[in-house]
């Protein structure tokens, strides 16, 4: 290596409670290069960048900028040191114009006042330098997502950074906006001698634009290579993780011959038609796999009545559903446990309160709806015992419990519902320890095998879906695109399909 790296991170580590998000990662970044970082959801990509940009302080390791060790206390210092970052979420002030947004934080002054003409001048110069066409004097709120994105990059470039971090920049762009945007990024790296760190989970994209690729898996760097030297298959296999998941006994229990519990074709929501064709039988657990933004949760929310849909084609227990509302779905035996545990609990409520709120119809007097506290307590304690929730007192607040135990309460109370037949668990194992995860897997199998219920298990951890599910449906871009069956689960092919957005490999059945 002839030239010196602009930025080196050495043994960078970041922990959140017991969870290690980034584990001793070392990468060098060179000027004029686009260095792509790819990895599954939660692999630690964003965490690394947030440490570089000063949003997070690393627990261990060094950040070396231009040969000198840097330690940023906050984003302002990192910006001054020459690190620009574009975050996943759009972060603009909609009421300000493009030029005003670009100069936000370092407006030129005219005595005590801001120099509005100077602001426009800076923005115009930048625009000419980059050779792009964006309206600068219109409020940002009136512009499209692509334009907003470009303005945000201009803002990051205003301070002439040496390093520009782009965190999933194409995630919020529409179909037609991605191509020109990628061109712009390539052009940018050629023209200016900036080191660009490009985070993405879109394989095609990074092979198109990057000159170097690093793969992160569970916070560990598993591959670094020049893009020209490797092929996509190698990247995918580096993304696969070897996690120790205890075996879960799975015996085929599905009543395939009977009528399907749920038959889904598709639905129209979020302004688009989504094709999600699958059927679920009693006694079957199917997994929904996909990368962030692949539309698994959205589909589940439509079925459960949390996300409005204009049209939908669902047949539940042999009847076409013509109107969805959450209350009715629960009455009909469908329950969804939300992706974010926090959405499923009343933080300041007691354990009893959190469990019984779902069952107040049953736990109050018929006519007046007066609560029967003794009955509530008995019922709640029964649920706690039955589902092995570790607690000290049934009247303690739920926020005091660990994530795993909170999840046990959420799943436990859902299972206790009368006549529940279809359970949708959205990322039930996120952020909980292995033992607790295993208990959830066993619970799911128990539900499908001995109680003949149908389970949809949404997860970003392929291993657990492979361990628990009878079938796996792969999602990409809001649609279900492929399906795999238990007899021929192939990790690499499933992941490959999710990344490419189409069935790839002989074990994957194309759908839609």
């Amino acid at each position, binding site marked *: 290596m002839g030239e010196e790296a602009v930025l080196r991170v050495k043994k960078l580590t970041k922990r959140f409670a017991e969870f290690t998000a980034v584990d001793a990662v070392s990468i060098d970044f060179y000027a004029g290069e686009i260095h792509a970082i790819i990895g599954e959801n939660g692999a630690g990509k964003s965490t690394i960048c947030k440490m570089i940009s000063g949003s997070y302080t690393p627990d261990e390791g060094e950040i070396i900028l231009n040969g000198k060790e840097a330690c940023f206390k906050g984003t302002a210092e990192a910006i*001054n040191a020459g690190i620009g970052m574009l975050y996943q979420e759009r*972060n603009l002030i909609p009421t300000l114009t493009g030029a005003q947004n670009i100069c936000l934080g370092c407006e030129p002054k005219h005595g005590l006042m801001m120099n509005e003409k100077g602001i426009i001048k800076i923005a115009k110069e930048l625009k000419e330098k980059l050779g792009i066409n964006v309206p600068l004097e219109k409020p940002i709120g009136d512009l499209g997502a692509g334009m907003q994105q470009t303005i945000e990059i201009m803002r990051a470039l205003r301070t002439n950074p040496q390093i520009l971090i782009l965190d999933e920049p194409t995630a919020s762009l529409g179909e037609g906006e991605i191509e020109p945007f990628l061109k712009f990024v390539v052009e940018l790296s050629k023209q200016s001698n900036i080191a660009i760190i490009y985070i993405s989970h879109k394989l095609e994209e990074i092979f198109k634009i990057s000159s170097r690729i690093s793969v992160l898996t569970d916070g560990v760097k598993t591959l670094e290579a020049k893009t020209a030297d490797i092929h996509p298959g190698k990247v995918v296999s580096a993304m696969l993780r070897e996690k120790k998941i205890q075996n879960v006994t799975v015996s085929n229990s599905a009543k395939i011959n009977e009528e399907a519990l749920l038959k889904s074709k598709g639905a129209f929501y979020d302004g688009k038609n989504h094709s999600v064709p699958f059927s679920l039988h009693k006694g079957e657990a199917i997994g929904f796999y996909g990368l962030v933004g692949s539309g698994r949760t959205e589909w589940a929310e439509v079925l459960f009545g949390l996300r409005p849909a204009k049209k939908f084609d669902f047949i539940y227990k042999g009847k076409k559903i013509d109107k969805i509302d959450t209350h009715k779905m629960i009455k009909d035996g469908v329950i969804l446990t939300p992706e974010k545990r926090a959405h499923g609990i009343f933080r300041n409520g007691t354990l009893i309160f959190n469990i019984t709120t779902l069952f107040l119809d049953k736990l109050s007097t018929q006519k007046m709806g007066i609560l029967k506290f003794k009955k509530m307590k008995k019922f709640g304690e029964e649920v706690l015992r039955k589902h092995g929730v570790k607690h000290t007192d049934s009247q303690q607040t739920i926020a005091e419990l660990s994530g795993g135990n909170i999840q046990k309460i959420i799943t436990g109370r859902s299972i206790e519902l009368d006549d529940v037949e279809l359970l949708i668990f959205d990322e039930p194992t996120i952020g909980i320890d292995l033992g607790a995860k295993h208990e959830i897997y066993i619970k799911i199998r128990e539900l499908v095998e001995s109680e003949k219920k149908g389970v949809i298990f949404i997860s970003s951890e392929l291993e657990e879906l492979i361990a628990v599910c009878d079938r796996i449906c792969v999602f990409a871009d809001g649609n279900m695109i492929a399906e795999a069956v238990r007899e021929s689960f192939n990790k690499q092919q499933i992941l490959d399909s999710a990344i490419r957005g189409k069935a790839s490999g002989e074990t994957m059945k194309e759908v839609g």
Partner: protein
Amino acid sequence: MSEKASISDILVNYFLLIVLVVVTAVFIIAGGKGFLSGTMLINILRSTSTLGVVGVGLTVIWGAGEMDFSIGTECTAGAVICGMLLMNDNFNSYPLAVLCSVVLVGLMGLCNALLTLKLHIPSFIATLGMSTIVGGILKLWTNNSVVYSKNWPDAFTAFTRVSILKIPVIFWLFMAISIGGYIFLEKTRTGRYIGSAGINATACKQVGINVNKVKTIAFVTCAAIVGFGGVMYASVVNSVSPSSGVNVLDGICIVLMGATFLKGGQANILGTVLAALLMAILSNGLTFLGMPEYAKDILQGIIIAVAVSAIAIKKKGTLPTVSFG
């Protein structure tokens, strides 16, 4: 997203101004010449001024996305501190007393900022608590009674008595503070950061703006301006009392009404000034026509409801609210 503003846009944006013109016209027609008399106009300007200054202060903190429910007490404190200091035989500098008022009330704003930004108490709770505490202290200090003193210098009521170009000084002060506030919020960096932090604090942090500092400035500025409003109020009534001053709800009302003007839901000085004028015209006009005081409340409520619903229907998600928590 269209280039030309539609008629409905114009109606929504200028609703406040239209109402102001219509209401004034109705009073002139119904009240005849009497409504245009000098005393009437001066009355209107006077009551616009105190309420308006408090509104300007509240606009600053509202713009920062925070709330200050202690404006009522801040206003009272401004008056009481000034009046009580001047009771003292050895203390006869009016400007110094005014300065003390503004600085001490400004400190109250600093406390609000600390509670909100350091202890992370939602600002509406923190300021409500602060309001009660300081209100109690003021009652202790004044024995909970109206205070009037012969010791007070003539300057005490000069804002109201003295006129420049036939307009009382108090109104000129209001104008000066409004223009100052406008320039501060619209033309200075800090002002822009205040507005930006109110809309998207994360975005501000990411470009290296110190959001806590910006919001602290907003809290202190708000309190100091409102404290000065209290001094103005004392000069109008020529007495101070721990239970008089500008009503909190009136202050909130004019900022709310003002937010509907031009900026579709964002608190702004121009709107606040117009709304203060409208309120003063309404209350003085109705009294002039022999209507009871509460008639104003009803009209004022209707105006707010119509203006805010129009914005809610036009632009979803940009209502003039502050997040409570």
